[in-house]
């Protein structure tokens, strides 16, 4: 009975979402408030119904209702409690429910925040938001019915994909989807601006926080995805340019571009057309990402199931892109710039270059991702491009972006004088050069690593210079140094929040550089009681043990650190044998450190435990990536704090 209620809830929600979108559009055109109120009520009801559907699905998982196909396929009696909850979004159908639920949530928040403050735009925002929700509801009730029954009812389910039994899978999809769906709001505002002809700066300032929030969650989703890949998949890496990773990375790139380009519009009344296009592009890329992961058009390690759903997504993508572009063409005349670029050496052009680079990066990632399709369409040959392509193209782009990260915030608006350049950059540039020399002397061999680290120091130098200078200015007001710094950061939280985010990115860049340049690994077979050695670390193989877990059998190897790291620490890499899986799942064990991670994967072993083959890696500075994520979080929070600039 419960599954039927769930289906009914989704159907009613679909009807209400369609009604709400129509009512809001009609209400806006005719100026009928009653219709608008009805649309609001519809939106609230849609959210309530989606919440109910999510709850019913969770209930079905917690009670092992294997009569629901989705439950039977993604859980079994042995699945632990937490993973039964995460299994709700562990596969295609359920992930769409979560997705739609978040959209519903954002719609409700948008109503609460903007119904009074954005009177003209808001009805159309509602139209777009409800329209997108309606699309997801169509999928959930049509090609991917989450509450579909399974007959006959199996005694036990098939079980969750074991790779998803990880805490990262609780947060990764949630963060990623919050990011993906979050960009719907700025998109809805952009469309509203185009429809109403109010393409001025209002929609930009209104959506600034939304964009930051969406961008932040997308960043977080990417980082947690990297962490999951690092500590679960067992290959010791965190990024593989897999199509699905790219799918999330492309909107991140264009979203980052947007965060910067809106500042130009706010300040200089330029780039209106560009900003609208970026919003459309970012939203379209989130849809494209979803399409990619769920259509099976491009083979990927984490591809979801395929089916008719791809056609639906592509159709929707086409509708979104074509409608947006037609609207842009229609409003073309109103989108001209009011300000103009005064000089090549100016903050405007630094930001413009940043945008061009970010969009170029997004384009190359897009190109590389769809290349297999393209080559097959044009030449009939299936060729996919791998990490070398992406790295070769993107590394120079990202290095340039890091450089601009130092230039942009300090260079003068309009036209930078020589004096401005000298004052702001001479110190940091010298610092960067000195750092390069020091790193070289310390024995850093790779030129790329030296360059990246020197750039990082340069950017950190510019940030430090700015903070010191501004703090000193406040000191003259008679404040103590700490108080001055604190006030400065809080008063100008947008600027300093941005700086902290930049610092986070720098820390991540250092982590990526270090891990790429200096990680080492070895594969070796060790006998019990003997040692494996790598880069000054020695591990002793103590033996194997077997244990029966709730839903799998686990063979664990025991390794003790005897030299190099924390002596006496024990690493327990394992192999997990799930009955429903064709091959065992490796369970990685690791010791994280600021400088080195010890990372151990158990390979083949003798049943009697006499010897085992392991892959032993010393991964360098990977932790910096996760620390960078924390810094980035702090920066985002700071940037989002309410502005309190007026008070002195």
């Amino acid at each position, binding site marked *: 009975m419960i599954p039927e209620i769930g289906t009914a809830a989704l159907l009613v929600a679909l009807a209400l979402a369609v009604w709400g979108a129509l009512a809001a559009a009609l209400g806006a055109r005719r100026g009928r408030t009653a219709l608008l109120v009805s649309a609001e009520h519809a939106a609230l009801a849609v959210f309530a119904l989606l919440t109910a559907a999510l709850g019913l699905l969770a209930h079905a998982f917690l009670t092992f209702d294997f009569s629901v196909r989705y439950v039977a396929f993604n859980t079994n009696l042995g699945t632990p409690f937490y993973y039964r909850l995460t299994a709700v979004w562990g596969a295609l159908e359920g992930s769409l429910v979560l997705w739609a639920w978040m959209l519903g949530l954002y719609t409700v928040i948008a109503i609460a925040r903007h119904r009074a403050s954005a009177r003209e735009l808001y009805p159309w925002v509602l139209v777009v938001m409800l329209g997108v929700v309606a699309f997801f509801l169509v999928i959930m009730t049509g090609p991917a019915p989450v509450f579909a029954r399974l007959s006959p009812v199996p005694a036990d389910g098939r079980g969750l994909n074991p790779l998803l039994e990880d805490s990262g899978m609780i947060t990764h999809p949630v963060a990623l989807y919050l990011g993906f769906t979050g960009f719907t709001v700025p998109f809805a505002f952009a469309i509203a601006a185009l429809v109403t002809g109010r393409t001025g700066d209002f929609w930009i300032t209104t959506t600034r926080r939304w964009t930051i929030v969406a961008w932040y969650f997308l960043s977080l989703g990417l980082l947690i995805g990297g962490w999951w890949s690092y500590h679960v998949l067992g290959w010791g890496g965190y990024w593989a340019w897999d199509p699905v990773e790219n799918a999330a990375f492309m909107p991140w790139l264009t979203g980052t571009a947007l965060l910067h380009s809106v500042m130009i519009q706010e300040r200089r009344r330029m780039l209106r057309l560009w900003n609208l296009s970026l919003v459309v592009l970012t939203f379209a890329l989130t849809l*494209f990402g979803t*399409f990619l992961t769920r*259509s*099976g*058009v*491009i*083979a990927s390690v984490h591809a979801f199931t395929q089916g008719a759903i*791809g*056609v639906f997504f*592509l159709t929707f*993508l*086409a509708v979104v*892109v*074509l409608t947006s*572009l*037609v609207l*842009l*063409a229609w409003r*073309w*005349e109103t989108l001209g710039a009011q300000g103009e670029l005064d000089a090549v050496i100016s903050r405007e052009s630094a930001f413009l270059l940043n945008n061009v680079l970010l969009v170029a990066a997004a384009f190359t990632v897009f190109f590389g991702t*769809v290349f*297999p*399709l*393209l080559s*097959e*369409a044009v030449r009939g040959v*299936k060729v996919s491009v791998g990490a070398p392509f992406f790295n070769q193209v993107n590394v120079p782009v990202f290095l340039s972006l890091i450089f601009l990260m130092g230039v942009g915030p300090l260079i003068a608006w309009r036209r930078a004088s020589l004096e401005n350049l000298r004052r702001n950059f001479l110190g940091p540039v010298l610092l960067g050069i000195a750092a390069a020399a020091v790193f070289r002397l310390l024995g850093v061999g790779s030129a790329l690593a030296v360059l990246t680290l020197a750039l990082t120091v340069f950017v950190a130098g510019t940030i430090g210079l700015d903070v010191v200078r501004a703090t000193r200015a406040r000191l003259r007001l008679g404040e103590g140094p700490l108080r001055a710094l604190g006030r400065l950061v809080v008063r100008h939280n947008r600027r300093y929040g941005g700086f902290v985010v930049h610092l986070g990115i720098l820390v991540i860049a250092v982590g990526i550089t270090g891990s790429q340049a200096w990680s080492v690994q070895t594969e070796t077979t060790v006998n019990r009681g003997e040692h494996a050695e790598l880069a000054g670390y020695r591990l002793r193989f103590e033996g194997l043990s077997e244990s029966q877990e709730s839903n799998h059998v686990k063979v664990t190897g025991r390794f003790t650190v005897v030299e190099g790291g924390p002596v006496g620490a024990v690493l327990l890499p394992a192999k997990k044998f799930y009955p*429903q*899986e*064709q*091959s065992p799942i490796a369970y990685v064990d690791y010791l994280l450190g600021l400088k080195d991670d010890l990372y151990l994967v158990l390979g083949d072993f003798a049943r009697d435990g006499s010897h085992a083959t392991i892959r032993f890696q010393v991964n360098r500075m990977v932790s910096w990536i996760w620390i960078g994520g924390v810094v980035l979080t702090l920066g985002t929070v700071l940037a989002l704090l309410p502005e309190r600039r007026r008070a002195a």
Partner: protein
Amino acid sequence: MKTRWRWLLPLAAVPVLALLAYGFRLNPRDVPSPLIGRPAAAFTLTGFDGAPIALEALRGKVVVVNFWASWCYPACYEEAPVLEQGWRAYRDRDVVVLGVDIQDRDEAARKFIRDFALTFPNAPDPDGKVSVDFGVYGVPETFFLDRDGRIRAKHVGAVTAEVFRTHVDALLADGTR
């Protein structure tokens, strides 16, 4: 820009969308085998019934080599009866169906053979060498070999009666020319 050109803006998206739509016509898992047209690597395996199975000894016959596993549900379960039927229908016409069971547990594999009452020769590939030689990417995959022992076609996914008939008939016709 006051030209009408701006209306061409939406057209820019069309090629990309068309490309993505084109993707539906393809199966990304359908990786073309470079082995087509090449002689198949010789192998000798010991069947589940204990009898040796040597590919070399089957020269002059059309051979269907099917890679499967008992855990491969549903595709292997769908195609097992088809293969058995094909084997029964064609065995008198110089056609041999060979099952190669990969990455499997012995008792589960034997139960699979029993459940589907398979009568064509079946053997485990204990060290996975045969599947590597054939470039098997996943199960099920089926290779159609001509009378000279060359791989002429590869099918990914469950074999249907039609697929079986088409390939085998073509190879039989080929051989009589």
